[in-house]
C-alpha cells in the first residue's frame, strides 16, 4: 500500500492537472449530494416578471424564458446527470466484465459468442445505436442508462477478456484451482479482483463519454423530459435563444457539462498513470 501512495504522490506532483481533476471531481460529487439542499431557488419555480434576465447578483447564471433560476437548475441537474452516467457505467461494467472474464478464461464457445456480440455492437455508430435503443424501449430515463450501458459494453468486454486471458494459466490461478476452488470461484474470487484496477481506469475513462452520450440523447429530446433540470435539455432550451443573443441560457449548463466531461477524462488519464504506469503517454 505504501509504495502505491508514494507513487500516487509522485504522479500528482508530476502532473498537477490530475490533482486539479480530483478537486473538480470532489466539487461535482458535492454538488450532486448537496445540490437540492443549497440551491438558492426552486428549479421549477417560474417567475414571468424576471424572465430572460442576464446574470446578476440575484441570479448568478441569469434566468431562462420562464424566469427560472439557471444556477439552481444547473446545480440540481448535477445529481441526475451524474447518476445516469454512473448507473450506465456500472451496467456496462457488470455486463462487460463478467462476460469478458468468462470469455478470456473459458475460451471456446463463450469467447466466440461474447466476441461476436461485442463486434455487432461495435458495427453501429455508437450514438446512433443508443438513439435506436431509446426509441425502441421508450422515452424514459432508465432507457438512457440501458442504451449508454449497452454501447459501452464492448470496451469492457474486450479489456476484461484480454486481461483474463493473460492470467488464466498464471501461478495464482493454478494455485486457486489446485486448492479445490470451482471455476466460478476462481473466476469471480481470484481473476476478477485481480483485474479490478484496470477496470476502474476503464470506468473512469468511459464516465466522461457516458455523460456526453446521455446529455446528447436528452438534447435531441430522448429520455429526460422537461421541465426536469438536466444539462442536455437546458442547452436544447437555450439553443432557441442563441440567435437572439440570450447566451446565458445555453452557456452555463453547456459549460458545466463540458467541465464534468473534462474532469472525468483527466481523472481517467490520472488514474491510469497511477495504476498502470506502462500505459503513460
Amino acid at each position, binding site marked *: 500500500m505504501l509504495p502505491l501512495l508514494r507513487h500516487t504522490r509522485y504522479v500528482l506532483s508530476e502532473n498537477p492537472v490530475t490533482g486539479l481533476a480530483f478537486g473538480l471531481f470532489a466539487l461535482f460529487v458535492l454538488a450532486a449530494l448537496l445540490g437540492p439542499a443549497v440551491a438558492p431557488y426552486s428549479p421549477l419555480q417560474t417567475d414571468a416578471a424576471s424572465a430572460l434576465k442576464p446574470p446578476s447578483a440575484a441570479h448568478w447564471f441569469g434566468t431562462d424564458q420562464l424566469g427560472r433560476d439557471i444556477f439552481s437548475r444547473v446545480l440540481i441537474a448535477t445529481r441526475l446527470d451524474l447518476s445516469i452516467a454512473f448507473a450506465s457505467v456500472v451496467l456496462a461494467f457488470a455486463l462487460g466484465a463478467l462476460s469478458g472474464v468468462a470469455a478470456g478464461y473459458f475460451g471456446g464457445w463463450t469467447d466466440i459468442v461474447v466476441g461476436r456480440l461485442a463486434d455487432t455492437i461495435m458495427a453501429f455508430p455508437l450514438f446512433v445505436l443508443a438513439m435506436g435503443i431509446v426509441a425502441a424501449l421508450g422515452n424514459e430515463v432508465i432507457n438512457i442508462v440501458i442504451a449508454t450501458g449497452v454501447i459501452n459494453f464492448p470496451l469492457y468486454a474486450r479489456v476484461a477478456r484480454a486481461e483474463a486471458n493473460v492470467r488464466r494459466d498464471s501461478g495464482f490461478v493454478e494455485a486457486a484451482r489446485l486448492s479445490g476452488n470451482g471455476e466460478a470461484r476462481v473466476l469471480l474470487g481470484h481473476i476478477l479482483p485481480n483485474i479490478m484496477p484496470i477496470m476502474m481506469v476503464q470506468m473512469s475513462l468511459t464516465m466522461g463519454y457516458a455523460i456526453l452520450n446521455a446529455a446528447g440523447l436528452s438534447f435531441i429530446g430522448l429520455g429526460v423530459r422537461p421541465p426536469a433540470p438536466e444539462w442536455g435539455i437546458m442547452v436544447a432550451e437555450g439553443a432557441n435563444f442563441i440567435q437572439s*443573443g440570450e447566451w446565458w441560457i445555453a452557456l452555463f449548463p453547456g459549460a458545466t457539462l463540458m467541465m464534468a466531461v473534462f474532469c472525468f477524462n483527466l481523472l481517467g488519464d490520472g488514474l491510469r498513470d497511477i495504476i498502470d504506469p506502462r500505459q503513460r503517454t
Partner: protein
Amino acid sequence: MLSLLLSRLATAIPSIIGVVIVTFMLTHLLPGDPAAYFAGLAASPQAIAEVRAKLGLDKSLPEQFIVYVHDLFTGNLGNSLSTGQSVVHEIATRLPASAELTLTALILAVAIAIPLGVLAAVKQGTWIDHLCRVVTTAGVSLPVFFTGLLLAYIFYYLLQVAPAPTGRLDAFLSPPTDITGFYVIDSILTGNLETLWGSLRQLALPAISMAIFSLAPLARMTRGSMLAILGSDFIRTARASGLAPRTVIFSYAFRNAVLPVITTLGMVFSFLLGANVLIETVFAWPGIGLYAVNALLTSDYAPVQGFVLIMAVLYIALNLTIDFVYGLVDPRVRLD
C-alpha cells in the same frame, strides 16, 4: 488486389448479419406493442389491429424475420407516418446533405490533426506539443452540440460574419442543379459562384464544430505513433547516415506512423456519424440526422429504425474502405 478486396468483403458479412438481427430486434422483440408504435399515439384498437396485420406482426417471429429480410433485399424500409413517403426515398434524398457535412468535417479534422500530431511529436515538449495536448483533451470533452451553439453565437450573433445557422443555403439563393447532391461540388460544376460561396458559408460552422470533436483521437494517435517511430532504430540509422531531417520525418517516419492513424479513422467515423445527428439538429441542416430526430419527436418509428440500419450499413462500408486502404498503404498486410 481482387483477393484482398474479396477477403475484406467477407469479413463484413457477419457484421451485416449482426446489424440486421439487432435492428430486427429493436423493432420486434421489445416490450410494448410495435403495432401500437407504428400506428401512432392516437390510433384506435381497430387501426392497431390493421397495422399489425399489415406489418405481419400476427405471424411468428422467425416468419417475421424472413419477411423483414425479404423487405430489406427489395429495398423496403416501410413508410413514414408523417409524410406517407417511403423511408428509403426520404433518406436517399437527404443523404447527400449529411454526406457533404460529414466528409467536409472529416477533411478538416484530418487536415488539422495530422500536421498538429506530427509537429507535436517532432518538437516534443515545446509549445506546439502542449497545444496538441490541450486540443486533444479539450476536443473530446466538448459536447458537440454545445460547440456548435457557441460558434453560432460568436460568429452569427456577435461578429455577424456567419450566416444564420439554418439549413444548407440562404433562402435568397436557389440550390444548384442536382448532379451529385453536394451543393459545393454541384455549384462548381455549374459554375455558379454565388451559390458556391453561399453554401460554403453555411457549411463552415457545422463542419468546424464536428471537426473539433473528431480531430482529438486523430491528433493523439498521430503524435503517439510518430513518437514511437521516431524513437526506433531505423530512424536513428537514417539520421546517422546523414539524411536530411525532412526526408527522415516525411519519407521514413511519417509513412510508417500513418498506419495506426488510418485504423483510428474507424473510431473517428463512429464519432462523426453520431455527432452528425446533434449538429444537424443545432444548425437545422436538412440531412438524415435531423430527419431521424424529427421522426423521433413525432413517434414515427419506421424512419428511426431505417435510419439506424442505414447508418450502421454505411459505417460498415466505411470501415471496409478503411481496411482496404490500409491494405493498399501497408504492403505487409497483403501477404497474409
